[in-house]
């Protein structure tokens, strides 16, 4: 059975499209670069100075961030550490349930700070969320990375770094922050 030239050309274009689309889709599970230490300065004020500090950098338009929010709600705020939530507001549409989740986080005592993606200084190099930052009582960053594949390893990370043990940062898997980075990461607009 012979294919016509037109149909064969369509199939060829289709195959190229599949390869390119598959390449882009496959790239999405690659981790983002780690930001600079200046990311901690995005939330300068916190009530518990001199304590351990955990900063959860999340986004309302990111599914992975929602998973972290659900985890935080499930485990409740830890008492021996100051936890803060920094919501990066970008151009993307908010996911449903985000408002509810954020409201519940606030109810549980998580201080939520919002920041527009545009206003984040470029030198911060914040590319993707969710991002977990753990700082010592001396306000020194001891951990900066991801939450693990299920978005629930922040507690384990904190317990380890608190004892002074070294650990490699988990990859930051999630969503790009800001339209500029999104265009860079997804030039044909497949994901964003």
């Amino acid at each position, binding site marked *: *059975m012979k*294919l016509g030239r037109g*149909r064969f050309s*369509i*199939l060829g274009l*289709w*195959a190229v*499209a*599949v*390869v*390119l*689309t*598959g*390449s*882009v*889709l*496959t*790239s*999405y*599970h*690659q*981790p*983002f*670069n*780690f930001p600079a230490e200046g990311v901690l300065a995005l939330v300068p004020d916190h009530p518990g100075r001199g304590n351990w500090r955990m900063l959860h950098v999340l986004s309302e338009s*990111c*599914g*992975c961030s*929602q998973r972290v929010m659900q985890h935080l709600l499930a485990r409740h705020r830890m008492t021996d550490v100051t936890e803060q939530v920094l919501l990066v507001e970008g151009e993307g549409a908010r*996911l449903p349930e985000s408002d509810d989740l954020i409201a519940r986080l606030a109810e549980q005592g998580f201080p939520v700070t919002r920041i527009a993606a545009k206003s984040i200084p470029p030198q911060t190099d914040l*590319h*993707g969320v969710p991002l977990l930052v753990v700082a010592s009582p001396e306000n020194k960053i001891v951990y900066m990375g991801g939450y693990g*594949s299920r978005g629930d390893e922040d507690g384990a990370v904190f317990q380890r770094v608190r004892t002074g043990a070294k650990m490699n940062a988990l*990859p*930051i*898997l*999630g969503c*790009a922050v800001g339209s500029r*980075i999104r265009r*860079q*990461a997804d030039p044909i607009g*497949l*994901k964003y």
Partner: protein
Amino acid sequence: MKHEITPYEQAYTAKVNSMGFLLLLVHLPILCVVASMTHASIMLTAGIMLLLLLGPALILMQGRSSELGGVVIAVAAMGVSALAIYVCNGLIEAHFELFVLIALLTVYGRVAPLLAAGLTIALHHVFFWLWLPSSIFNYKASIGIVALHAFFVVVEVIPACWIARQFGKSIQAQGIVVEHLGGAAEQISSAAAEVSASSQSLAQGASQQAASIGETSASTAQINAMANQNKENSNSTATIVADAAARFERTNVSLSNMVAAMNGINESSEKISRIMKVVDQISFQINILSLNAAVEAARAGEAGMGFAVVAEEVRNLAGRCAQASEDTSKLIEDCLAKSRAGKTMVEEFAVEIRTITSDSSRMKVLVDEIDVGSQEQSKGITQISRSIHEMEQITQSNAAAAKETAAAAQELTAQAGVIRGIVGQLAALSSAA
């Protein structure tokens, strides 16, 4: 080596193409549900899924049994794997689908779909490695790492290609068995039935022929016995004829002697006749002399009376002698006449006897020839009888062979039926698979 694609293989390819398309189609709702759970874009997922289904749909519209269908479905399957990885937010376990789908492609029984899948996934990795902006992503992998990723795909694809080739050969073999062996079994069955019928007819004819030859052999034996009897009879006849000829020869000699004797009798009779004439003449002269004596006695008177009586008696004796001589002469004449007649008859009889002797000699020659002919005939009939006996044995052997052939043909028919049954079972198994 390019082989002839059987209708069975075409049907199999059509079935696998359809099942492959359905498998991809099932991903559409499943990935949309997963997308809703992972907060990925459902519209984007559905759109990409429809794009991936476009190629297989085009091929299936062209023809469900298209060999290109396997390649297109393989490319689409790798796209579906990439989509699944995306929808699952890069979940490591989502990569398993890629390997599962590659393994499933072996069901085509061809290498091309597997190579297409391997090439597609390799291009995915190479392109995304080139694609990723290093300023954003923490992807420090070298091309070596990418090659390592590809290595595992190759590790699966190479044995999968071997398995697919073996499976493909099995499908080809099934196609050949179902398409050709079934027909061959039908032809064998038909030919065997014809051979069986012909052999049975041949066996029946050979049996009848054997019976006829047996009857002919019996008749020939009878003829042979009669020929032997004729030979013996002709031999006896020749002996008898030879004895008769000898006897005729002796009879002929006796007849010659008898003729000679008859001639001697005739001569003796003629001599007697002449003697009797002499006696008659003597009687006549005695009569004359008696008459003279009577006359003399009469002249002598009384004295001569006695003499006259004697003369009378002499005359009487002469008369009686003459009468006796006359009677004897008559008898001798009669005897002579009869002797001549007898001689004539003996001579005629001798001539006949000689003719008979001559005929008997000729008859002996003929009888001898008949005897020789009978012996030759007997030998010929014996040879014919032997040949007929051999023919009878050969015919019986042929009849037995024909019966064995008929039995073998029936067995062949049964075996052809078994082959048909096996082909039917294979076809049923293949259609059920």
